């Protein structure tokens, strides 16, 4: 009798196990952890995308919004199932090290150099990002750096390098915090800073304005990466990757922010592949 019950229990567990697994044929389900960047949260994009994805599938999404560096780190340790990040160089290393199953372009937004409306270093008329950064360094005007290994921070350091400057000194303020907090600090300290356009538009109570924008160098591409690691929810991760690059979602992304900010914050890229 007891033995029979045991067999029945084992069978039931086995069957249940098959059902919840992303086995062949059945639709993926369960909880999925998405590690993404603070910019997708701070702009409100996640609040639009996540419910739509959950409605379209049987997956429930837990999002962790951190810097791109930490998001990739979470992926490498198998703590996240899917990543939505913008740090191309670090992403390529991530893929090379075998942590990712796939990496697809999703969208891009752009970086802007913002600063006090009075523009003491006259960066608006400097003639480009390189010249703008050189003017900031030359006049030792305060510049707030996130200094947090985020995608934006990586971009900022690259831009300094391109401008031929090693920023240091008391004018170079390292906040070690996210984009919203850094924009607030920059505004209060009348400092310049590099921000993605979306977070700058979405952050309230700033006394700063966009001074340099629109250059090729300032593009900010986002990729979706399906993490390759034991124990991850591959089914949902793959479903998310194909869902976010699908035509309807790309249209959703293209329209995001138009009502609230009067302009699109992200530009879809998946069609170009």
């Amino acid at each position, binding site marked *: 009798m007891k033995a029979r019950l045991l067999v029945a229990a084992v069978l039931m567990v086995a069957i249940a196990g098959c059902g919840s697994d992303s086995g062949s044929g059945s639709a993926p389900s369960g909880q999925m952890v998405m590690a993404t960047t603070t910019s997708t949260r701070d702009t409100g994009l996640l609040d639009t995308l996540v419910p739509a994805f959950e409605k379209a599938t049987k997956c429930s999404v837990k999002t962790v919004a*951190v*810097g791109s*560096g*930490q998001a990739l*780190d*979470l992926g490498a340790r198998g703590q996240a199932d899917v990543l939505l990040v913008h740090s191309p160089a670090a992403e390529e290393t991530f893929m090379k090290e075998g942590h990712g199953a796939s990496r697809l372009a999703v969208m891009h937004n752009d970086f802007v150099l913002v600063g006090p409306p009075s523009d003491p270093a006259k960066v608006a008329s400097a003639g480009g990002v390189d010249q703008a950064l050189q003017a900031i360094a030359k006049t030792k005007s305060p510049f707030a750096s996130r*200094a*947090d*290994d985020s995608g934006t921070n990586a971009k900022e350091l690259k831009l300094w390098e391109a401008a031929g400057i090693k920023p240091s000194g*008391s004018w170079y*303020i*390292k*906040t*070690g*915090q*996210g984009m919203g*907090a850094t924009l607030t*600090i920059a505004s*209060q*300290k009348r400092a310049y800073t590099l921000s993605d356009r979306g977070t700058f538009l979405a952050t309230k109570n700033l*006394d700063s304005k966009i001074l340099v924008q629109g250059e090729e160098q300032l593009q900010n591409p986002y990729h979706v990466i399906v993490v390759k690691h034991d124990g991850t929810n591959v089914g949902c991760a793959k479903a998310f990757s194909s869902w976010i690059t699908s035509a309807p979602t790309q249209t959703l992304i293209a329209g995001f922010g138009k009502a609230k900010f009067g302009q699109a914050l992200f530009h879809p890229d998946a069609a170009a592949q």
Partner: protein
Amino acid sequence: MIPLSVALVWELIGRTAVVSLSATAIAMAIGIPAGTALGMLRFRGQRPVAAVVNTGMALPTVVVGLVVALVLFRNGPLGSLDLIYTVRGMILAQVFIAAPLIAGITMAAIQALPEELPDQLRALGANRRQLVVRLWLEARLPLLAAVMAGFGHAVSEVGAATMVGGNIHGQTQVLTTAIVEDVGKGDFTPALAYGAVLLALAFAVNAVLTSVQQRGAAWVQS
């Protein structure tokens, strides 16, 4: 992995100690007299005030940080003082965090003294100042506990230090905000190391205060 910079660790220890010890000292200067007055005097509204002080003991540090930051912002009421994202601004915020604790525990300590003690001291001819000093001496053990609690709350908080200080490297970064930053970067090794250093700092300060306290205790028993 980047090895820990010893110079940076010392810088963080120094700034953390300066901020929290200064805040505790100022909070003592406010909290002990205020708590004593609340414990000794009977006046209309004493109870509600005591309830407010006791609530202040549970003041969330992020709320303190938020309010102090809003007041100190450039366009805030005290923006012209230029205290936002400075060490002095952080000290101010931590005073609001430590002072209610010190006042609340002081009040309880004074009220725990024998009820007839003030009258006896007055009968012996003590004036008000002598009376208060005598009461503080009698209550010195819980008073030192109050100071330790105030320091402990100040040195361990991260919400106000982040919002008012801004975690600016080389200027306002302290051990707690450095820990949060490193965790944000997924860099757990230095975060753990800073945690250990923070504990060591708290231990050192409390060891000094405890030795003072226990010497006082031994003196009472002899």
